[in-house]
């Protein structure tokens, strides 16, 4: 039955047949090329570029040999636990947010616990003598680290800015509009250039911020402004009567926002928020341009290594696959999570 309708809709008319043939041709060429390059002609075993001299396809040895660098950057092996511990805790803390019972705990952990953990084991502020060098962190870990804090802090900042723009006093509103529009009006790359080249000038003599901190500052400002506009969209979607009703119930402005308006607003725009997260996650790759060894930066650095010159394609395809899995997973997660947030 299914086959019949399938065939009919594909070859039922001249037009449909034409579209089918074109589609099939595209698919055929794509599949055969990809299969040849990725699998049939590819080299999987070996430990140096020598193994790939005769390859007609991809040289996956390159990825295999550099995998640790792609994951952790310059981190020494004995310090991997820091990255692993942090990522596990971050995953745990984020997943707490999705269940009503543990939401409050999750919020505390994410906004207080995780920054403290970062200070303790990544920034390593308590034992700078013996510990690890924070600039050694790189690779996929750095991408996740930057995205995690960028996304997380975008939320409260975005909410404050949205509320300020929507219903703050004149001066606050003007400030919020200015702030939001400035960050939204410029490309992230200029923000990162600013944070890497310009921010040091604005700090008082003797105060030093690491490159990572400065980049994060830029990313948080940037993502906060985008988040503000998304949340503002949600606020506008909440029926005007809600505010009056809640004030009639004796709630003050803060309470009505906290318990009535914001939860609804956020629910309305939750798909948009997730989309925002995904684009921020993709945007973190730009830190590679300011010379940080994030995931993409590490891939690039590896292709520049004299032992592995000329395998950029493999690196990029591998990176694309990893990013795709993360982003696609996130977008699927959003459609799965919608029913939960409705409760």
């Amino acid at each position: 039955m299914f086959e019949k309708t399938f065939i009919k809709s594909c070859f039922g008319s001249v037009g449909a047949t034409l579209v089918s043939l074109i589609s099939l041709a595209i698919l055929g060429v794509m599949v055969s090329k990809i299969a040849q390059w990725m699998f049939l002609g590819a080299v999987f075993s070996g430990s140096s570029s020598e193994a790939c001299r005769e390859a007609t396809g991809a040289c996956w040895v390159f990825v295999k040999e550099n995998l640790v660098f792609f994951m952790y950057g310059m981190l020494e092996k004995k310090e991997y636990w820091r990255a692993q511990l942090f990522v596990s805790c971050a995953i745990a803390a984020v997943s707490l947010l999705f269940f009503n019972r543990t939401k409050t705990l999750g919020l505390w952990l994410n906004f207080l616990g995780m920054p403290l953990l970062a200070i303790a084991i990544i920034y390593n502020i308590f034992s700078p003598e013996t510990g690890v060098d924070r600039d050694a962190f790189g690779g996929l870990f750095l991408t996740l680290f930057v995205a995690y804090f960028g996304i997380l802090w975008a939320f409260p900042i975005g909410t404050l800015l949205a509320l300020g723009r929507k219903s703050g006093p004149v001066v606050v509103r003007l400030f919020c509009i200015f702030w939001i529009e400035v960050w939204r009006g410029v490309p992230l790359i200029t923000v990162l250039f600013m944070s890497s080249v310009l921010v040091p000038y604005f700090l008082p003599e003797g105060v030093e911020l690491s490159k990572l901190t400065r980049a994060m500052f830029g990313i948080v400002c940037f993502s906060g402004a985008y988040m503000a506009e998304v949340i503002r969209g949600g606020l506008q979607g909440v029926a005007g009567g809600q505010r009056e009703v809640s004030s009639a119930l004796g709630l003050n402005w803060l309470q009505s926002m906290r318990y009535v308006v914001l939860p609804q607003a956020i629910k309305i725009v939750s798909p948009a928020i997730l989309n925002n997260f995904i684009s921020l996650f993709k945007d973190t790759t730009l830190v590679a341009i300011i010379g940080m060894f994030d995931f993409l930066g590490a891939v690039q650095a590896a292709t520049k290594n004299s032992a592995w010159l000329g395998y950029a394609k493999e690196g990029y395809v591998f990176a694309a696959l990893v990013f795709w899995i993360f982003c696609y997973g996130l977008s699927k997660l959003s459609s799965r999570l919608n029913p939960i947030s409705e409760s």
Partner: protein
Amino acid sequence: MKICMVSLFLVAGFAHGASLTLDKVRKRGQLICGVAEGLPGFGQPDGKGGWSGIDIDLCRAVAAATLGDAKKIKFVPLNAKERFTALQSGAVDILSRNTTWTLQRDASLSLDFTGVTYYDGQGFMVKKKLKIKSVKQLNGATICVNTGTTTELNLADYFRANNLKFKMIAYEKNDEVVGAYLAGRCDAFSTDQSGLYAYKSAFKDPEEHVILPEIISKEPLGPAVRHGDNTWGDIVRWTLYAMLEAEEFGVNSGNVNSLKTSTTNPSVKRLLGLEGDLHKGLELDKDWVFRIIAQVGNYEDVFENNLGSKSPLKIARGQNALWSKGGLQYAMPIR
């Protein structure tokens, strides 16, 4: 926002009143050194947390002299754009990143160059199959360069002066320049000659590329420090001189331990701090040169390991031989 700012400041930590870089470094127990993001022979991460290169070793030597341990060091990879800001703002203590010493940089950017670790010049690499023997034959060629370098300006000057036409493609990063050259985006690739040798050695088919004989500029590469902290500048300057002097007197990482107990040569004794109190002027202890040589090596050791016969680059000493052997490397006397 405010809370965020405050926490950022907390994270950063305050390092107050340290106008003297040496005090700051000692208090921190670590030297912070700005290096290249990846240039074989000069500053190259090995992908496993380690760094190698002549610029790297100079920093190690300074760490050995000031902190007693060449390992107490942190390397901060910097691109061409951020390197000067990073030094000016105090984010790094030394900039040791194949940087050309020019008047503009020395005077207008408030840097102090403290010596020349490598005498270089801008050259060109082309593919052998083009059968080109001289830069003058590059009329109408497309040339790839790294943006934000003296290379870009020298190239335009040279071609205009010689009435040659060219197209220039400028990339943000070195690996992009190399990739574009190999892919055939450009006919020639121009950068410091040492860099050309470094890249050529790493190609799959080094014999398919030629480095043209012309050198179109002087590129003295060396470390730089912030202007105004003269003691710190002296330390970096004399670290390099000590390594050169050690080569001149035949003191290297292999024999420095035995020489320390057995030498009778007064120059070597002075160098290794066995006689006199030259170290006091630099606010260092008397073993500083001994540590540099023992932990890092003399100039010859460093050169051969990173650029010369013991490295894949196989660059001849050439201009970088000691003055006594017909080169330009000349250390001021340590006495």
